[in-house]
């Protein structure tokens, strides 16, 4: 009897200490993320002061618009949808050791395809079907676009950093050509594709302006996270990424897996483009290139390729973009200040991550 209670006591003790530890770890994570952001804000604040602007006002505007005002946070969440798809695509590639720096090109081609296909298909198909087909088509085209670097890498061993960078230059140029020469909306003088009417776009969530694309994006990135960490297929990709020779030795078909990685990664980036068009933009204009990936790449690294952490970092990026633009306007700072803010936050977060990593290593000793 007493022995029994003793063990249960011990068990609850262990449970309690476990929970305590988990909570501690969680709090530490939060501190390790918020702390650096605070430091970054102080640094950026000094810059603002140098330009004669009260940093506190600036930040209160950023937070207010980006996070706390009801309509502001809806914008933030809406902006996250394409970013999350790109993040998901990058996670697959980076975890498999493929440095896909061509996400912007893949995103744009997906966007152009969706923008061209949806209104066209809607002419003779039910709208929902047209949208779904446009989404799939966009994914397909983005996948096809990645085939060049994929095959070059898989069968010729040509480094994908160069090819994907180059394919981005080419892709933006090509998307532009497609908009101007092929998918031009004849009813307007502005070079852009036909516009999908607001009512035909993806539904918004409840009574808000948040696009339902956000839900798809969250599903995509969580699915990718689970795929990479929990499934055999994800493990295979990670083996290829961590040690390609071990992959050969273990009997994995490395070239085929490489092509698969490119396809999934580019497909997700293309979906990001499609979701942005079908959910928010409605059309693509010539020379439109939001270059989201340039900012998402570092976020994914900071998240250590973890899907959930990526969601948090993408949220942060989105808040900075939406809130920063608002604050800049209200205070008369040029909008480019947002770039500087993002850059400082990025670098300080990277430093914090490094210090954390060091610390962890020495503590375990």
């Amino acid at each position, binding site marked *: 009897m007493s022995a029994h209670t003793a063990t249960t006591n011990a068990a609850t003790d262990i449970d309690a200490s476990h929970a305590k530890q988990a909570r501690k770890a969680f709090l530490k994570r939060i501190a390790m993320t918020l702390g650096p952001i605070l430091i970054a804000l102080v640094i950026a604040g000094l810059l603002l002061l140098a330009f004669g602007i009260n940093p506190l006002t600036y930040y209160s505007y950023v937070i207010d618009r980006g996070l706390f005002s009801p309509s502001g946070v809806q914008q933030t969440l809406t902006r996250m949808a394409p970013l999350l798809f790109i993040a998901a695509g990058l996670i697959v590639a980076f975890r498999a050791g493929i440095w896909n720096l061509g996400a912007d090109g893949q995103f744009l081609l997906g966007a152009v395809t969706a923008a061209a296909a949806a209104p066209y298909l809607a002419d003779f198909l039910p709208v929902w079907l047209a949208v779904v087909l446009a989404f799939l088509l966009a994914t397909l085209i983005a996948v096809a676009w990645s085939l060049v670097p994929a095959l070059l890498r898989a069968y010729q061993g040509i480094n994908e950093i160069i090819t994907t960078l180059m394919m981005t230059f080419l892709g933006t140029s090509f998307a532009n050509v497609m908009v101007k020469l092929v998918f031009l909306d004849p009813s307007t003088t502005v070079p852009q594709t036909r516009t999908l009417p607001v009512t035909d776009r993806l539904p918004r969530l409840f009574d808000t302006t948040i696009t339902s694309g956000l839900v798809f994006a969250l599903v995509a990135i969580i699915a990718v996270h689970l795929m990479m960490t929990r499934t055999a297929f994800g493990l295979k990709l*990670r083996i290829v990424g*961590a040690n390609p*020779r071990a992959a*050969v*030795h273990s009997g994995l078909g490395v070239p085929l897996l490489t092509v698969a990685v490119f396809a999934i990664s580019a497909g997700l980036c293309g979906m990001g483009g499609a979701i942005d068009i079908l959910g928010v933009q409605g059309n693509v204009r010539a020379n439109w290139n939001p270059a989201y990936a340039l900012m998402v790449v570092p976020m994914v690294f900071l998240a250590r390729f973890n899907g959930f952490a990526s969601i948090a970092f993408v949220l942060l990026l989105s808040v900075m973009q939406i809130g920063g633009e608002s604050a800049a306007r209200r205070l008369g700072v040029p909008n480019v200040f947002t770039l500087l803010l993002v850059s400082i936050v990025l670098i300080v977060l990277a430093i914090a991550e490094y210090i954390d990593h060091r610390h962890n290593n020495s503590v375990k000793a």
Partner: protein
Amino acid sequence: MRVLSERSVSPGDKPIITLEGVTKRFPGVVANDAVNLEIRPSEVHVLLGENGAGKSTLIGMLSGLQQPDEGRILIDGEVRAITSPRNALALGIGTVFQHTMLVPTLTVAENLLLGAPWWQRPRKESLRTEVEALSKSLGMQVDLDAVASDLSLGEQQFVEIMRALLRNSRMVILDESTSMLTPSGIEELGALMRRLVERGLAIVFITHKLREAAAFGDRISVLKLGRKVGEITPERFQALHEDDLVTEIVDMMFGKRSDDPENGKRAGTTIAEDAKTVLAVDGVNLPATQTSPGLHNISFDVREGELLGIAGIDGNGQKQLAEVLAGQISGASGKIVLDGRNVESLSVGGRRDAGLRYLTDDRLGEGTVGTFPVSMNFLLKEVGKPPLWNKGFEKTSDIEKHAERLIAEYDVRTPRGHTPVGRLSGGNIQKVVLARELAEGARLVIFNKPTYGLDLANTLAIRQRILDIAAEGKGVLLISTDLEELLGLCDRIAVMAEGKLVGMVNNGENARTEIGRLMIGLEE
């Protein structure tokens, strides 16, 4: 083999280097624990110890790669910190590391020239004369214009020794330099060490082979779990008989146990006449490449319960043979029949499923994924297969349990199942790989240098495993450059040279000489 009597220079009295209470910790291990050591001129100081005993770590601190956490290092009696490799070189400490430290894309000459002031032009000509002078007095030959990656590992070792000597080192450290050498190469290196100590140099020599220690050493220190557990001084060394010496060392390293692996002969099993053929290889060919001799019309078979050895000097196509059999390289022709079934067209995975297992000699390079946990490395070749995966989803707790079981069964020394395998010592990594290859369903296992770099206890354990597998009625193909190992374990031994099977010898009375003759090309 002992050359004690020929010593002319008596060991100096003043140590070049003294370690006092040196301690080094890594996450989860104390690699060196309050080690005291003295290294004297004109002396070969042998360091012995199991895998992971902390020998390389000690060397790391002497060569400036690592700093001790506690304790101090005295050089010529003065306390000095060895802050960097550059500093170590300046103090006259030259090191030949366990893993090659040559830049693969540079030529031998360029590798030797590294370290000169950055603004200078490489002094190739003066290097050439210096190297020639050294070559003459030491009897070593190196091709200065060869690209480092084209050299065999043995040749690379020589280049590194040359580099240490070119730097006018007072002390040369050789970390397992013999593990990659042929028997005659080992003899040469031994002779070279003698000549060097005669010139007054100090040598630190790390090896796992007790006979080498006994043959070439003057003083022996033994490390165990980071601690120094014993030292045999030159006086005792000279007084002891070789066999007693070995026994004493074994006692120090492993406690009471003195079964010398090199005496262990296979209990004369006989393979039944009617034993089934597990593997039949017929007329396998592979085109030669720049770095390998290819394979030429290789045919042999292995029967159930049989241990077939493949002898030969490293680089004569053994690795290619193993990889062709495992399905890792394409472009080969010929027949490979496993249990009566042609497997040439099967993939690596297909052959593994059919029961063909290949234990690679490149544990870190291809055998494991260093950053992955031990538990996953057990399953590297079974990814996605039930029961540990359910419809492609991993069953995390089952995988952990599976790992725990194997860790216990194979005595893998690791802090936890999710420690990255790259952090383990070589012997323990080998156990992980072994556990993986011997899993369910093995019919024929190819071992490629399974005991290379392993300590005595691990070597014995692995050899016992190999015998057990054969005893279970499976076929074994054992590739090794260690003739003793082959003679100790195998039923038959094939000899490879230049990508050809030049002969097949039944293990027995005259096997050693026959194989030796085949290896050096005396019999065709």
